[in-house]
């Protein structure tokens, strides 16, 4: 395959055209980093299965067409449709631009825009550099008290001009002892090619408790790269569930730092993948001290010509005694053309640890299918029922109650769609 490279010269011109302000110096530094290191390629171990050519291609087309950010005004209806389905206090990033009109000032939540005050960024990775270089604006959120409604973060993009690119950058700090509920939803409007690159950093304070739901239902013309970096305070807890339902090429990186004793995290994920899709979930947990526990279960349902990747890494560093780390990944392959690469990676350098991992790849249970058919359900109905059952468990684990109904209906609609595809 012909290799494509991101056009740095065009990128530089685009960066220089962005409005001057608090982010200007950061953009320049990020651009320099990116120029030096370039974007990851399949020669990097972590990127073995996911090729960013599609992201680069969309970026180059967008850059050569003038690299403009589409107005966010036309997104009103799409935004309303999403936020009306979940009762939350919504912050919106639409076409890369912050939109505060749906957000109600609330005691306990403080929001600062990067364009007003840009604190130093961590730009330790090329995609974070790309994000910072092209960033219009971002959000820094501090939650210091429990609020009546969950915090919603909607990232939505519309592409109707051939190809477009946008960045989203959000930092969330949850204060000590505070309970917070967060819903992140990444979605699309429009039909053309789009590349979205997001960087989210979550800092969970001492003894704080965060419930976090992530929904991604981008359209099939969308390429997505996103990194969520989490750092956990002493005795803090995080419950998270991710639902990847859309996108052409999706790469999620989740990095979790357990640097203080007593923290407890569970993060689960469901990915539904069908014809023409590639969804890659890379997770990494660094257990630096004990006691602490991490547990994840990802499940995938694949049909048609598609590919999914799950790579779960847990590193138990020297001295992190009292670590409990569990990872599981289960996949349902409904088509011979579906491909899954599932890889647990445990690196243990401490003595007193409990670790487990398990991955499975399988088809629907034939005896269950037959049993349902002897009760009068046709093959299609039986398949649907068993597939739903496989997903149901993870829908039930959505840790933010306000989002459960929306997740349920999105997953059901997506599953119905996925099962339309001819079995092969």
């Amino acid at each position, binding site marked *: 395959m012909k290799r494509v490279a991101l056009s740095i010269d065009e990128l530089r011109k685009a960066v220089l055209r962005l409005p001057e302000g608090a982010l200007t110096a950061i953009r320049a530094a990020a651009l320099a980093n990116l120029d030096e290191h370039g974007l990851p390629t399949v020669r990097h171990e972590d990127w073995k299965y996911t090729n960013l050519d599609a992201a680069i291609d969309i970026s180059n087309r967008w850059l050569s067409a003038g690299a403009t950010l589409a107005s966010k005004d036309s997104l009103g209806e799409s935004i309303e449709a999403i936020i009306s389905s979940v009762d939350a206090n919504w912050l919106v990033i639409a076409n890369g631009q912050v939109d505060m009109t749906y957000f109600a000032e609330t005691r306990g939540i403080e929001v600062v825009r990067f364009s007003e005050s840009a604190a130093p960024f961590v730009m330790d990775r090329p995609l974070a550099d790309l994000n910072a270089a092209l960033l219009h604006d971002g959000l820094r959120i501090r939650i210091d008290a429990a609020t009546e409604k969950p915090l919603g973060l909607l990232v939505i993009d519309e592409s109707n001009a051939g190809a477009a690119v946008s960045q989203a950058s959000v930092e969330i700090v949850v204060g000590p002892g505070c309970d917070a509920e967060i819903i992140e939803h990444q979605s699309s409007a429009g039909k053309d090619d789009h590349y979205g690159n997001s960087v989210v950093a979550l800092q969970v304070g001492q003894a704080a408790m965060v419930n976090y739901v992530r929904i991604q239902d981008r359209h099939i013309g969308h390429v997505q790269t996103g990194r969520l970096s989490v750092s956990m305070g002493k005795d803090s807890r995080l419950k998270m569930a991710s639902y990847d339902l859309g996108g052409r090429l999706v790469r999620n990186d989740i990095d979790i730092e357990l640097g203080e004793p007593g923290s407890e995290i569970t993060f689960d994920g469901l990915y539904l993948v069908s014809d023409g899709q590639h969804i890659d979930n890379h997770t990494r947990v660094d257990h630096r001290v004990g006691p602490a526990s991490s547990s994840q279960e990802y499940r995938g349902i694949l049909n048609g010509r598609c590919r999914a990747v799950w790579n779960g890494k847990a590193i138990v560093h020297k001295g992190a005694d009292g670590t409990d780390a569990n990872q599981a990944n289960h996949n349902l392959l409904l088509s011979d053309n579906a491909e899954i690469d599932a890889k647990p990676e445990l690196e243990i350098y401490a003595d007193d640890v409990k670790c487990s991992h398990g991955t499975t790849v399988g088809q629907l249970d034939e005896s269950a299918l*037959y*049993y*349902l*058919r002897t*009760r009068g359900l046709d093959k299609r109905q039986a398949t649907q*029922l*068993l597939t739903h*059952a496989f997903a149901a468990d993870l829908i039930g684990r959505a840790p933010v109650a306000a989002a459960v109904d929306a997740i349920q209906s999105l997953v059901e609609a997506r599953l119905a769609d996925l099962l339309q595809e001819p079995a092969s």
Partner: protein
Amino acid sequence: MLEINNLKSRIGDTEILRGLSLTINAGEVHAIMGPNGSGKSTLAQVIAGHSDYVVTGGEVNYMGNDLLDLEPEERAREGIFLGFQYPVEIPGVNNAYLLKAAVNAKRKHQGLDEVDAFEFLKCAREKMAALGMDSKFLNRGVNEGFSGGEKKRNEILQMAMLEPRLAILDETDSGLDIDALKAVATGVNNLRAADRAIVLVTHYQRLLDYIEPDFVHVLSEGKIVRSGDKTLALKLEEKGYDWVREAASA
């Protein structure tokens, strides 16, 4: 209703049914007995349409049509119900949901509207009470974590809701304590009707104390080697299966 003529069937390379013939008419209750491994479950699964069992010879005619042509779901909608010897656990599929989907699949086939949700639940609860089943089982996964007896009762519940024309109960009695056995027998007896046939596959004659069969057949090595009335079951109990084997080979 059901005519089986010289039926031969194998699983993998093993021939199991070796020329079995049996006629069942509406209104009748038949008991099929026989030693372990004689092919009782195979017969039941062939009638239900399990694709692992390959029919290599003979015919099965149901209500005037070739049964072997039909998919398992078509057989079910045409009124055939198999109560499994080993009911399948299906975690995540709600028991009530399956019951309703099964009833509706059949109703749709008959050109009827879907059941009213309220009526359906009311009816299911009544039948569960009669079977001594707690209605909380409606909200569990299908057979998920059920005990042996609970699974069997759940099969009978499905049967009661589906009101089949031909019910085949494969060792529904095994593993049941006496109360459960009585409850199951009551469920079956309530279903006895002039337009319905019931086939009880059983290893022991115990069940037949509670459900009186019109005919008893003994299956051995894939064939019916003896048929008679209910006294045959008592004779079997007394003399053991060796007696039949000897009689068959004599």
